[in-house]
């Protein structure tokens, strides 16, 4: 990990959370993400990954600990600014795309921030351009293919010009070509990324650094290559590489940290 010189974009300290039914999902999570980093958040099902993500933009409030976004604490008073700074792309694009047209959907966030008219339109078209979906602005989202909807979902968040993009399982349910296209898009963006994923080759391809969350705590934090080649660590935290994939011989897609 690089030595922090500036305020981290994402600064999570001692975050603990229990759901109202008593189930405790997070037990003191510490996580820092710095500007320009692409970090993969790995961990088995039920590790608390989604719970952590919902804290980053203040949907859930911590039982203990703090979350800061570029120095701004996530609390009720700052919610609007926090939600502009942290763009969450949810797993099912059908949850994220609810308006009648792609244009209206991408415009929903910036319009909530008070943008209007030409400024709104240019913000929308820039975001759609970034994901290569500008030609589909007037289509209803439910007439697009799944891969296209995932890309529009990314655009809905980019339109808010977030400081950090949080992606929940970005490669799930995508065919290999759409998966590669999304990787190209993510690489082309000049934005900090936190990517929750089970797709370990995708993490290796896109993210120089990974953190592993297991049973509500961060159990490993380091270079993705080192984590994926640490067999004991992988076994201990229910992480498995797909059949035939060897990170030692895979070309390194991500630059070294």
């Amino acid at each position, binding site marked *: 990990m690089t030595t922090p010189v500036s305020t981290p974009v994402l600064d999570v300290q001692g975050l603990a959370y229990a759901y109202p039914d008593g189930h405790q999902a997070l037990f003191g999570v510490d996580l820092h993400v710095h500007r320009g980093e692409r970090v993969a958040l790995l961990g088995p099902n039920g590790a608390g990954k989604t719970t952590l993500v919902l804290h980053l933009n203040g949907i859930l409030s911590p039982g203990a600990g703090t979350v800061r976004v570029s120095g701004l604490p996530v609390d009720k008073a700052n919610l609007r600014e926090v939600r502009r700074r942290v763009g969450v792309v949810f797993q099912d694009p059908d949850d994220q795309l609810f308006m009648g047209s792609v244009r209206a959907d991408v415009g929903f966030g910036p*319009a909530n921030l008070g943008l209007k008219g030409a400024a709104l339109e240019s913000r929308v078209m820039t975001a759609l351009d970034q994901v290569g979906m500008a030609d589909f602005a007037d289509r209803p989202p439910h007439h697009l293919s799944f891969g296209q909807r995932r890309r529009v979902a990314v655009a809905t968040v980019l339109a808010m010009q977030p400081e950090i993009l949080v992606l929940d399982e970005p490669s799930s349910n995508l065919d290999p070509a759409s998966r590669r296209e999304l990787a190209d898009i993510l690489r082309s963006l000049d934005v900090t990324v936190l990517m929750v994923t089970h797709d370990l080759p995708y993490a290796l391809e896109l993210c120089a650094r990974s953190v592993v969350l297991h049973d509500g705590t961060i159990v490993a934090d380091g270079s993705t290559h080192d984590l994926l080649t640490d067999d004991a660590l992988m076994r201990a935290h229910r992480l498995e590489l797909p059949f035939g994939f060897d990170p030692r011989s895979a070309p390194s897609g991500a630059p070294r940290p």
Partner: protein
Amino acid sequence: MGAGHGHRLHYHGHSPLHRCPAHLKILTVLAFTLLVVATPSTWLPAYAGYLLLIAAAIGVSRVPPLYVLRRTVIEVPFLVFALLLPFVATGPTTEFLGLIVSESGLLAAWTLVVKGTLGVLASLTLAATTEPQDLLIGLERLRLPHQLVQIMAFMVRYLDLVTGEMARMKVARESRGFSARNPRHWPVLARTAGALFIRSYERGERVHLAMLSRGYTGRMPR
């Protein structure tokens, strides 16, 4: 899911009726329906006139008449009720098609059938010539409360998704050898409906989270 399926009530076209602003069409259908309801049920020529009007509208719209007629099956439950009326109503009786039936019941049944059918035909013509999106814009222009229009917009958006889910659950049931043939199978259908309700409810919660994450504070941007 995926690309290329529209809504089942709308018939794509470019007739003058398709191009007419949605709020005018909504007002026309509303006025027409009120007029039909207000017409005394014994004025037969008036009803013939109404029917001609609808036939003319469907002709102008170039929607195949069968397309509209096939969709009137939605009316069947009302027709069944109308059919029962002459037999359950009381009062003076008369003979009709060799059966002894209640006079007032017979009149009520005729009224229900003819007024219902005219209303359904008019609404279906509106639906066939107007995209759901335009219908919503029309309702908004008629100053329907914003919240109501939004609720309808979400319904239009997620209707396909929910019916798709329902269809997949049916396929999954049938793939395991189930088909609903008699009332003994109804509990299974009820549980499916319950599961569908919970799934839709949870989707609603996820959509709400996604909206909050993009700065939604309770008002849709205009």
